[in-house]
């Protein structure tokens, strides 16, 4: 198979499963590829070039490693940037005509190993149509860019230095807000555990795996009624509860899920303030 910087990671993995290990060995950022869930969500969206950009390395490095396990390299003349992005390496203060409502610098959180996703999403929800916010990060935050694009934002990326990226997110007019696209978000194990940690001790845990339908639903809804502010309900379930989710949405609950295996799903249910 011929590969270029524009080739999707998922296509490469489909061709040769060993590519997972090879890419993961390039940089610690890519170890996530070993997680099947992330591989599915990221792999199908991200190209070699974008991946290299996330890892802060040259795409040639990844391609060279892939060449060693039998891929052919095809050079592409395409430009070296993501959609809508401007490369202006060197400028600390990028010049744009976008007026910003909020600025969010998540570099500290990233350095401490924390996941700023929730903070970013929360900020994004406060942005009205036509308004923008600026995200400052140490690398191109592709997952959040894709995520926000799906909920109606446009993203303008400015590379301001080797470890400095400014992204301007603007909510397009007539776009849907993220909370109307559903209250259920599937996460991988790491992200789920991080969400869990955010609630600390404020967790009520129940196990409904050994209950017969509709008792899991009844128990969960009863528990959510008694849930105090700032508390989350942590549920061990057998499957994603298809008939329960709409009811939780009606009652303004949000749900994070993590599918451990075919018989185990973990849910974190909480009320968004």
């Amino acid at each position, binding site marked *: 198979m011929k590969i270029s910087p524009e080739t999707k990671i998922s296509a490469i993995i489909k061709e040769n499963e060993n590519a997972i290990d090879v890419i993961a060995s390039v940089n610690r950022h890519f170890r996530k590829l070993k997680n099947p869930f992330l591989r599915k*969500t990221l792999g199908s969206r991200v190209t070699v070039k974008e991946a290299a950009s996330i890892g802060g390395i040259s795409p040639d490095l990844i391609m060279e490693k892939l060449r060693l396990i039998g891929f052919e390299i095809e050079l592409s003349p395409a430009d070296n940037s993501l959609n809508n992005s401007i490369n202006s390496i060197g400028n600390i203060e990028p010049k744009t005509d976008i007026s910003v409502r909020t600025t969010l610098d998540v570099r500290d959180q990233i350095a401490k190993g924390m996941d700023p996703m929730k903070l970013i999403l929360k900020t994004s929800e406060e942005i009205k149509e036509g308004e923008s916010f600026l995200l400052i990060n140490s690398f191109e935050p592709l*997952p959040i860019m894709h*995520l926000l694009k*799906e*909920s109606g934002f446009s993203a303008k990326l400015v590379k301001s230095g080797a470890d400095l990226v400014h992204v301007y997110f603007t909510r397009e007019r007539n776009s849907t807000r*993220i*909370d109307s*696209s*559903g*209250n*259920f*978000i*599937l*996460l991988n194990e790491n992200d789920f555990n991080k969400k869990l940690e955010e609630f600390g001790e404020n967790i009520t845990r129940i196990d409904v*795996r*050994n*209950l*017969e*339908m*509709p008792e899991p*639903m*009844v128990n969960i*809804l*009863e*528990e*959510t*009624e008694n849930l105090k502010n700032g508390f989350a309900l942590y549920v061990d379930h*057998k*499957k*994603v509860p*298809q*008939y329960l*989710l*709409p*009811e*939780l*949405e*009606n009652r303004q609950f949000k749900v994070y899920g993590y599918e451990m295996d*075919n*018989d185990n799903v973990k849910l974190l249910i909480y009320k968004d303030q």
Partner: protein
Amino acid sequence: MQGLKTDLAPSKGVVLPHFIYAAISFFILAIMLVFSSSDLGNNFFKPSLLAITHVAALGWGTMIIFGALYQLIPVIMETALFSERIAKINFGILGTGIIILIVAFWKFSVNLLLPIGASIVFLGLILFIINIALTTFRAEKKSIQSAFIITSSFWLLMTGLMGGLISFNYRINFLELSHLQYLKIHAHLGMFGWFLMLITGVGSILLPMFFVSHKLNVKKLHASYYLVNTGLLGLTVNWWFFQARFATPLFTIFMALGIIFFISYIYDSYKKRMRKNLDIGMKFTVLSILLFFLPILLGVLAAFRIPSEIQLFNRLIMLYGFAFFMGFTTSLILGQTYKTIPFIIWLEKYKDLVGKSKTPLPRELYSEKLASLQYWSYLIAIFGFIVGIISAIPLILKISSILLLLCAITYNINVFKILLHKPEPLNNINNEKS
């Protein structure tokens, strides 16, 4: 990472009409059996029996499976049904086609009504398979159960096609073999391609869910899938084109092994169950799996041309078909009705109240006593039929058919009791809300 669409369940306007059509079909089926019970002791190729078989297979079995499947697709495939509109149109077309087809058989109007009815039914089946194929296509979650479902709908289409060919053959006689040979193919496509495939796919999710059992060996289902499909394809091709003697026993063994793998999967689930007490729905279900051994045994015997005495052989063939439809599938449907409709109605009426005030359980929506009466009348009826068909004693058949009618009446009362359920006005709810 994106927020997922949560409301995948179909509207009840899509699901419930199928259940109503099926319940009424079961009642009509029971009445028809009372009037022609003595025919069961004869050769199966009789207008009354052809009509009864099609009420059982289409009006009763297929209709209720369509309804249940629409309800379960979100659970099995984690996506919504492709089009509710197609499902509704499909219901209208199929419902009309079935009635024409049944009248055609009963009056044996093979030159006019039969091809018309068969064509309309076939049109309905095409819409169904389009809807299911597009749903499967869209689903991200691909499991062996999805494979069973999409394969079963393909076999259903083949069954309809075969039936359609036979119906036109009465008029223009273009098929070269005896119509009984095509009838055999048609029947097996329907029984094992459609009913068994679909029941395996849906049952392997539902039954462990209701037994509440975990960690089952899915490889058994894979084995079942390949064995049954290979066997069925082999039988069909052989019966149609080659008529090789050795092939029928060979492929029958394939299918029997495949079915045993499925039963073994269900048995594991039964063994590991958390809920030790079986409610009425699960009693019917266990009975259904036990009754399934009868057609398997008779099918294998028939493949080896046992018994050799022709009259007894014909009676056992009759019992084979009867045990499949009125034993295995009917008891399974009777049981699963008690697990699905109460839940659908309960969900609709009480989901807003759950956790906020006391709500009844789904099983409190029907009469346990009637259900129990239904269970026993069915059980005695079915054993009566087995004895009656083998011995060809009309009185036993008549008594059994009356008991089955009692079962159908109690079933209909309970189904409509559930469908017409009105929540009792609870004062404390209103107080809490205001």
